């Protein structure tokens, strides 16, 4: 029985992508695989939302893309964080932590 899958709340997709790219440049498929693995299959990024999100982040200058060779030597498009992207990741991460802590606090006490 696979674990229950959750829909991503609005705005968290960007955060997940940025966080995943903070470790090393990766191509689209690896990003979605990694998120799925790390979240133990709870979070799944649909291709239909992954690629538009990548384009949007590239347009905002938070990531940049270049073509490189994949692990099995195929041409793949690799995305990496820009300096602005790193700053944005810090902002979004701390905002998310605050939000999550606050929601948890309310759920605990109210």
């Amino acid at each position, binding site marked *: 029985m696979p674990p229950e899958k959750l829909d991503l709340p609005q705005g968290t997709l960007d955060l997940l992508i940025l966080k995943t790219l903070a470790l090393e440049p990766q191509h689209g*498929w690896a990003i979605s695989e990694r998120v799925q693995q790390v979240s133990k299959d709870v979070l799944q990024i649909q*291709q239909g939302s992954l*690629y538009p999100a990548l384009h949007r982040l590239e*347009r905002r*200058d938070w990531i940049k893309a270049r073509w490189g060779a994949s692990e099995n030597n195929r041409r*793949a498009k690799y995305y990496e964080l820009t300096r602005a992207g790193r700053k944005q990741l810090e902002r979004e991460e701390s905002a998310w932590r605050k939000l999550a802590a606050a929601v948890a606090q309310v759920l605990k006490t109210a």
Partner: protein
Amino acid sequence: MLSDLLFRLRALFRRSSMEAELDSELRFHFEHEVAKYIGSGLSPEEARRRARLAFGSFDQVHEDCREARGVNLLETIFQDIRYALRILRRTPVITAVAIFSLALGIGANTAIFTLIDAVLLRSLPLRDPQQLVQLRIHNRVAGEHDTVFTNPLWEQVRGRQDIFSGAVAWSDSQFDLAKGGAVQNVNGVFASGDYFNVLGVQPVLGRSLTPADDQRGCPGVAMLSYGFWQEHFGGDPSVIGGTLSLDKHNFEIIGVARPGAFMAPALASPRSQGFSAVSHYFLQP
């Protein structure tokens, strides 16, 4: 902001190559997905089916990516412009009439504004032009206001007025520059000695007229407008001290007025040697 616009434009103009890139990127993703399913023990056909199911529509992804790149807005605008141009080309007569009336309207407005600007909006290029007043004589017999004064009258006004900071008189005229032979007329003014001081027009070269140049029997002197100096003397500074023949009298050139000074006529000359008998008056409080 700028990088955003550049990104959008690049996305727009390199559209086909970006679409091809996206295509190969999606295919790459798709094949990895298939390989993953095969690795977990599915048959290749079943793996492809599952991957396609998970993937959804390629076209939809393309469309969403275009949206994300911000191309759609620009593209729609270009489409609208192209559409408008096509329609205009289909009705050339109406288009021509519309363009013509627009051109006429814009042209007429520009012309009228230029006139209004020169006449109403821009003030005279003088010191404190708002303080200038014009003195007129009321002729009771004719019931007219006259700005023409005789010389004795002007001398009375100049010598006795004490409500203005200065008074000037001038009269526009034509002078013949030729020393003999064919007449060579230029526009000019007779001006009283205080003319330049009171109006605040500085010379760029030499000196201005002074009241000493405006006495009965004094030698006539001439001041050149900047334009006349450029046109007739090529801007040569050695004209100062030279002579200018006006109506076959010799005038010493004493100075050149600054460019743009209110001195539409080419020359200014003091009333002397039996010239001026009539003058207009400007007084400055």
